[in-house]
């Protein structure tokens, strides 16, 4: 097998607990995003666009939808004679098998897969961030700095540094200290969870950690990185500029969708120079009727709009009947909003039927009556009966 310079390992086993009903049946990387995509489309498309041909996708939690979505990888041009995309669930070895304990353990358990491709570098990615990034540029940076490890970082507002892993760097961008969710941060460069390792280095540390520390959490942030830091390996920070979003919570998921709207959104999905690929369900064109009122919205094919849609993102197959009003909402695939229904600040799951004259997220419960925005969530396959009143901030499903 020809040698690959860099192999990508995509961590896609996460449960995404804070997304609640949105990840009831699927792993977080399989969560739909941006009217057309799933979260995993972003790192997979970035790989293809960066010229990375070999990608291992590490799955664990509810992998069925994700597995069938990835298929043979042809949607991302990753059906290759050598490499391509390989789904890597935990498996049984001679001495028994175990679940992936953590991010580093997942890579450790797939050392054979990486060795098979014999790369010089390994790129570790997570499957649940929204961003467009050229990993090839990051690799060039890694090489030019003679780094052992390069970590993708992002400037965050100082008041939010306590939510991130913060990298303290010197003037050459060399990382001299690592603070996990610090009270008093010394810097505002946050880790994006994107790492380039020299494979032979990483391999050594993974094996040592697994063999020497039986109770290890097998985590990059807690086990491997601190150890490498202590051994004074060369860490460099690669600063990313552009849109990046961790859609870990219902609020950030909703907000990331609102970010797609407006005159010139920061994340331009229509840019033909950096296409975000997806499985591309085959659907007829979108239909807007004579009575349709659409404003500031992103709408996918296969939709039928007969009502009013404002400041919203609609996935394929959504039907908004005459007289229905959808505002500031995200409607996942194949959902039907019947006439007279009104929806605001809501995330509606797949295959939901909202019957006539229902109100969702319109009225605010008295006990919730502070000024904070309340996102309402309707889970997959729910039927909201006629004239229901789902108050703002409720979760159904």
């Amino acid at each position, binding site marked *: 097998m020809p040698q690959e310079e860099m192999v990508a390992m995509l961590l896609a086993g996460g449960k995404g607990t804070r997304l609640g009903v949105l990840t009831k049946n699927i792993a977080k990387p399989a969560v739909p995003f*941006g*009217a*057309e995509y799933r979260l995993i489309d972003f790192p997979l498309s970035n790989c293809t666009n960066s010229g990375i041909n070999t990608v291992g996708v590490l799955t664990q939690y509810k992998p069925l939808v994700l597995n069938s979505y990835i298929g043979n990888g*042809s949607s991302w041009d990753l059906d290759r004679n050598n490499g391509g995309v390989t789904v890597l669930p935990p498996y049984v070895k001679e001495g028994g098998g175990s679940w992936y304990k953590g991010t580093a353990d997942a890579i450790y358990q797939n050392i054979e897969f990486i060795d098979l491709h014999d790369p010089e570098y390994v790129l570790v990615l997570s499957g649940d961030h929204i961003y467009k990034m050229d990993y090839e540029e990051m690799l060039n940076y890694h090489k030019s700095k003679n780094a052992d490890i390069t970590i993708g970082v992002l400037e965050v507002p100082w008041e939010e540094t306590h939510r991130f892993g913060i990298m303290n760097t010197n003037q050459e961008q060399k990382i001299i200290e690592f603070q996990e969710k610090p009270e008093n941060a010394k810097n505002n460069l946050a880790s994006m969870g994107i790492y380039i390792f020299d494979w032979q280095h990483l391999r050594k540390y993974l094996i040592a950690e697994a063999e020497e520390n039986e109770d290890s959490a097998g985590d990059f942030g807690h086990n491997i990185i601190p150890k490498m830091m202590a051994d004074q390996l060369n860490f460099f920070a690669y600063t990313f500029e552009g849109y990046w979003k961790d859609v870990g919570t219902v609020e950030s998921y909703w907000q990331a969708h609102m970010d797609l*709207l*407006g*005159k010139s959104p920061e994340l331009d*999905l*229509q840019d*033909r120079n950096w*296409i*975000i*690929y*997806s499985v*591309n369900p*085959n*659907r*007829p*064109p*979108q*239909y*807007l*009727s*004579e*009575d*349709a009122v*659409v*404003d*500031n*919205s*992103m*709408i*996918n*094919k296969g939709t039928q709009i007969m009502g009013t849609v404002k400041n919203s*993102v*609609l996935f394929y197959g959504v039907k908004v009947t005459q007289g229905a009003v959808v505002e500031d909402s995200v409607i996942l695939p194949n959902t039907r909003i019947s006439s007279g229904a009104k929806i605001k600040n809501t995330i509606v799951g797949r295959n939901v039927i909202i019957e006539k004259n229902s109100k969702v997220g319109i009225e605010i419960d008295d006990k919730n009556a502070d000024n904070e925005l309340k996102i309402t969530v309707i889970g997959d396959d729910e039927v909201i009966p006629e004239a229901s009143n789902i108050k703002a901030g409720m979760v159904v499903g």
Partner: protein
Amino acid sequence: MTPIYKKGGTNMNNVMAIINNALDESFLEKLTGHRSLASVPFGARYRLIDFPLSNLVNSGVTNVGLLLQTKYRSLMDHIGFGKAWDLDRKRNGLFILPPAHIYQANRAYKGDLQNFASNIDYIKRSNQEYVIIGSPSVIANIDYRDAFKYHIENDNDITIIYRELDVFRRDTTYTVINTDDNDRIIDMKVDPKKNFFKKISLQRYLMKKELLLDIIDNCISKGEWDFVKNAIIGNLNNLKVYGYPFRSYAAVINSINGYYKSNLELLKPNVWQDLFLKNGPIYTKPKDEAPTAYKNGVNARNILAANGCSIEGEVKNSVLFRGVKVHPGAVIKNSIIMQKSEIGSNAHLENVILDKGVQITADKSLKGDTNLPMIIGKNTIV
């Protein structure tokens, strides 16, 4: 389920298909200057070829030959290996059948039977017993299974799928047929100037493969080169040729106005439901376009739009293909705007067809007639 590779009498895997692209497409003027009729864009995200191809695949046909004639670069680009139609197979699948002049450059083109004859090996070697011969000039969502069942049960030699029309367009030409009470075809005419019959051929012909081979041989040996006129009409008296009625929507693309009206007709919900949702989906080459963005202050009503558009102006009663940009203040009415065209601010378009990549600069105004749309050729800057 029957095994895929078993040759089974009345199962659809015993049927192959040939899509005949040897058509006169000159009536579409500029739209077919660079492409064959089969690859003319239609219905916001399709090409005409998508309809016959998808119909076949949805009916269970897995061996399809594409007979080419001229200007087929864009068609080949669109079809590729047939993956979008699930026709990239180890056995059967999609076959590209080059035109006769590739083999016999010195001979003048006599008719489409020449193309059949040049590819006779493909037809002979296919292991299906039956063949459907189709054309991209009529688009519909047809399920061939019932027609094939009827063909077998009625012991027909040739079955022609037809539609009874309520409205004949004066600007469109038809292949008309006349049947007796049992649907036997007793008369058939290609583009007659008078003597209309109410029924038209949808250009789908079903027969045994052996019969097709015999007919081709027979016609050519007599110096007859036209598939419909000689191979079909010439055999009405000596073969059992029956019609099978199709009752859903069908569009005949045989004139500029017919093409224009058929596109706008898709805005009627019953028409697009008939064409896009009944009898299975219409497949097309995926382009990975982002969803369409409707910007602040947009006014879009009664439109069909593909993905990748960015719309800020006013668009009414129109069909927008992939990646169209409409700037603020622009007004578009009763128009067909093809892939990647851009309409500048305050431009005004009414009754126009813009081919791919047309740029209309700001403040320009173009107006065609409802019965004679203005056509702007590919990549033109106005």
